[in-house]
């Protein structure tokens, strides 16, 4: 067993974090820093007739005020990197010009000597608005409704049909076709650290440094260089400690460009820290689909076809990946089932709201919800156990790589194995018996099962907008310390530890001798970043490959130092040795050399020798480092089974999750403790979606759930104890056999929770409920029958 890999290793990043010694953006203090506050649109749709900033400009402490006019033509638009046929991309100015299309778009920036002065001055800006008709409802917007952009003539961003197989024929030949409307409500990511940007410009060096709370420092650097017209090699982006992202920081935002530009104008460091209210209004939202399911099945439970017609809410503008999210839904509609015909028809729609984009799961929770609800609907229609419907449609473990009608090849899987393990842990048979008894006693008791598969390790470059590879450099310093530079940008996932574990085992060095550096574009070679559960499966593989290359190089030098051929050197626990037999037999016969040669040399000694370079073989490049850019050949497809037991209070409609059992398979595991943490966090965000969270805009386009008082993210006492276990089906896509786990919980959990509640309420004739399922909804159903 390896010393580090596979073990529950305590995180190396924790000592600084538990002592309050980490540095998030706002913890970085530069002398003479100026502070920015934004005036944001208070209307969802309006013409701006005039802006008067004169009073604000003269307020105490104010240094400068900028509006859309000041930056027009000087800062490029907020970028959208997605490309789809016929996609309309509205020009998204960093400061609005004369047209605002959502509440929260920055209109003016005030720069002052401190944040209090900046915020005070915001109130002194006069904006003369002319309100325009607002469209909030996605289906109304699709039909026509008021137009977000007159020039387009409609509100359709794009339409897309995807999938394979003859869906018409499949549905026509089915014994049953079940239809269901389904709502995936808009969610707000709420990383606990809001966004923040600090920028500094050195006019002599012409160097712009931007510290920003981002998941993608290199991609942000490229985009910010383009926005600002600064050569990319003069822009340094640093993602310091990042306090959570969940996709919301997988983006390039207006404020990042603006704060950088202001620093260049004023020649002083400039900082903006997002307030929580701004975070609600102006950081991307997630989900936001309303769809129509048609699922066909045979009398024995075989699923024959699935159609999903969906209206996807883009919001007013397209952020980095906004239009791409529904395409991920389309890819994953087959779930873990053999379905010969699948079709998705997307209508992507502009509304007067904040943009949607990637929020933990990004399109796949929607797909899982669709297919898992469909499986439950089939079970209800046929009077089958939901577990049996699933089993009936699973591919066998021998059928992998498994081709879906959505065009994917699932890498590996054993869906039966995870299901069986979860059923065993839950004692499903007894659970059903308990349910029977509970119902006899008049209690409202339900069980939900979700067998999910998700798409991870995003992804092969051909399938991603800006490269899907990842990079790593590993080097051993002259003193023997190991430095890893990763293009991934972890922000809580713990890869400073898990990557160090890899190096510890591969190089036979102590974990504490390894340091992992990420997030600084001037230090780290170009990388893609952390999102789409790719950190370990793609970024970790690059580290692993670089380690192999490094060992090869070190072996060359070690052999030279040992005076033998590289093929006779073995490497174990940090030492290169000449095989005993070789040494005893006199090696290659050069006995004088062998007599003086040491029989073993440590990797640290090799590192020193590589740098001193007094004794290197011909053609050996001094130094000891290796770089790998890993391009994955496929995605990975983690899967699992979640089982939920709920009991509902008849008087209040309160939903009590009594048991939560999850068996997840994310391939091989580097650090089980970190995997558990990822699964816990994902499940709880899903509980948030299933029971509590919803971004609500009123018909004027005002965000009603705009504070933590109105938008309920789960608290400690609102979530159950989670019983976790794993199966491990290695992925063939990378040499470590890992798959990724960052989003599994979020993707697998909602259908199990919704399924359990629907099951509990099935005696009341309920077959489907949309999220969030609030006690009020449940109570109305119960009282209507009383």
């Amino acid at each position, binding site marked *: 067993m390896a010393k580090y890999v596979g073990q529950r290793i305590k995180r190396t990043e*924790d000592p600084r974090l538990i002592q309050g010694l980490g540095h998030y953006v706002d913890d970085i203090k530069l002398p003479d820093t100026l502070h920015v506050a934004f005036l944001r649109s208070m209307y969802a749709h309006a013409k701006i007739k005039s802006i008067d900033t004169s009073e604000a400009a003269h307020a105490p402490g104010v240094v400068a005020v900028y509006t859309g006019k000041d930056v027009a033509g000087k800062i490029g638009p907020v970028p959208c990197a997605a490309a789809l046929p016929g996609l309309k991309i509205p020009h998204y100015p960093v400061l609005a010009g004369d047209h605002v299309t959502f509440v929260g778009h920055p209109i003016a920036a005030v720069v002052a000597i401190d944040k209090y002065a900046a915020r005070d001055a915001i109130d002194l800006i006069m904006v003369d608005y002319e309100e325009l008709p607002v469209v909030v409802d996605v289906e109304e917007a699709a039909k026509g409704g008021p137009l977000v952009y007159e020039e387009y003539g409609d509100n359709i961003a794009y339409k897309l049909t995807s999938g394979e197989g003859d869906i018409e024929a499949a549905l026509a030949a089915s014994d049953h076709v079940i239809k269901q409307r389904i709502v995936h409500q808009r969610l707000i990511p709420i990383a606990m650290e809001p966004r923040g940007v600090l920028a500094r410009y050195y006019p002599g060096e012409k160097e712009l440094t931007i510290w920003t709370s981002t998941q993608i420092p290199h991609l942000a650097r490229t985009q910010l260089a383009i926005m600002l017209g600064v050569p990319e090699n003069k822009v340094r982006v640093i993602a310091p400690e990042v306090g959570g992202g969940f996709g919301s920081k997988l983006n390039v935002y207006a404020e990042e460009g603006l704060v950088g530009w202001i620093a260049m104008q004023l020649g002083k460091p400039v900082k903006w820290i997002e307030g929580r209210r701004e975070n609600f209004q102006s950081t991307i939202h997630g989900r936001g689909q309303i769809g129509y399911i048609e699922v066909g099945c045979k009398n024995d439970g075989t699923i024959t076809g699935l159609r999903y017609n969906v209206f996807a809410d883009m919001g007013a503008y397209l952020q980095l990946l906004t239009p791409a999210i529904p395409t991920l839904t389309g890819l994953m509609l087959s779930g873990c089932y053999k379905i010969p015909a699948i079709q998705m028809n997307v209508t992507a729609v502009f509304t007067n709201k904040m943009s949607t984009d990637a929020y933990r799961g990004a399109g796949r929770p929607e797909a899982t919800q669709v297919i898992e609800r469909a499986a439950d609907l089939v079970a209800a229609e046929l009077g089958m156990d939901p577990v049996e419907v699933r089993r009936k449609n699973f591919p066998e473990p021998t059928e992998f790589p498994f081709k879906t009608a959505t065009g994917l090849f699932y890498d590996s899987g054993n869906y039966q194995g995870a299901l069986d393990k979860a059923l065993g842990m839950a004692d499903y048979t007894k659970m059903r018996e308990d349910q029977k008894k509970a119902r006899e006693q008049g209690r409202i008791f339900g069980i939900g099962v979700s067998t999910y598969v998700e798409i991870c390790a995003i992804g092969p470059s051909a399938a991603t907008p800006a490269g899907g590879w990842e990079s790593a450099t590993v080097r051993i310093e002259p003193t023997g310390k190991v430095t890893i530079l990763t293009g991934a940008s972890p922000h809580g996932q713990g890869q400073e530890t898990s990557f160090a574990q890899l190096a510890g085992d591969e190089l036979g060095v102590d974990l504490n001798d390894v340091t992992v550096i990420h997030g600084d574009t001037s230090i780290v070679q170009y990388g893609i970043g952390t999102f789409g559960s790719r950190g370990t499966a793609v970024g970790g593989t690059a580290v692993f490959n670089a380690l192999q290359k490094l060992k090869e190089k070190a072996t060359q030098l070690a052999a030279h130092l040992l005076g033998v051929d590289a093929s006779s050197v073995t490497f174990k626990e940090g030492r290169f040795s000449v095989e005993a037999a070789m040494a005893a037999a006199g090696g290659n016969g050069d006995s004088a050399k062998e007599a003086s040669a040491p029989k073993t040399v440590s990797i640290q000694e090799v590192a020193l020798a590589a740098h001193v370079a007094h004794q290197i073989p011909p053609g050996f490049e001094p130094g000891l480092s290796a770089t790998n850019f890993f391009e994955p050949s496929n995605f990975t497809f983690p899967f699992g089974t979640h089982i939920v037991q709920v009991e509902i209070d008849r008087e209040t409609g309160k939903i009590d999750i009594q048991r939560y059992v999850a068996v997840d398979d994310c391939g091989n595991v580097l650090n089980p403790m970190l995997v558990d943490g990822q699964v816990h966090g994902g499940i709880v965000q899903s509980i948030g979606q299933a029971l509590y969270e919803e971004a609500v805009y009123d018909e004027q386009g005002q965000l009603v759930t705009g504070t933590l008082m109105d938008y309920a993210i789960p*608290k400690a006492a609102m979530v159950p104890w989670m019983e976790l276990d794993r199966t491990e089906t290695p992925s063939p896509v990378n040499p470590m056999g890992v798959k990724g786990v960052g989003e599994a919980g979020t993707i697998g959990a909602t259908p199990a929770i919704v399924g359990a509640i629907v099951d509990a309420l099935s005696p009341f004739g309920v077959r489907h409920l949309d999220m969030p399922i609030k006690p009020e909804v449940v109570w109305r159903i119960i009282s209507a029958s009383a």
Partner: protein
Amino acid sequence: MKKPITVTVNGVAHHDEVEPRLLLVHYIRDVLGLTGTHVGCETSICGACTVILEGQAAKSCTMFAVQADGESVTTIEGMAASGDLHPVQEGFWEQHGLQCGYCTPGMIMAAAQILDRNPDPTDAEIRHGLEGNLCRCTGYQHIVEAVQNAARKMKGQEATGD
């Protein structure tokens, strides 16, 4: 009009002149430079700014620095003597009670208060005691285990201490 205040933070008395509207959390972070205390909402909901004020956990975004005049504050940086860890900090490390770490200082302060009031809490009591602290990363389970871990350690310390 600035006001003179004296606040003892982590055992050190600080004398400063501050605007009456300066929030305590901004005093701690921006005037004293102790940035371990975080800001997640400024509306007294998230608990990222929790400090111990005169022995009580308090949300430092919800009070003015002038209200802490003459009082003593412990922040995350003052939880343990330099170089050491408080048992609650150890608990969070051992049980993976943090991911991004942003909520963590506030969580640790709140957890310390829970154990101060109740050295032997049930899981439910811990969850209840953390109602004022939001974490978006961990799902709370490892945090509950971290607090239990700390409780065990602190009981052990007391047992051997006397």
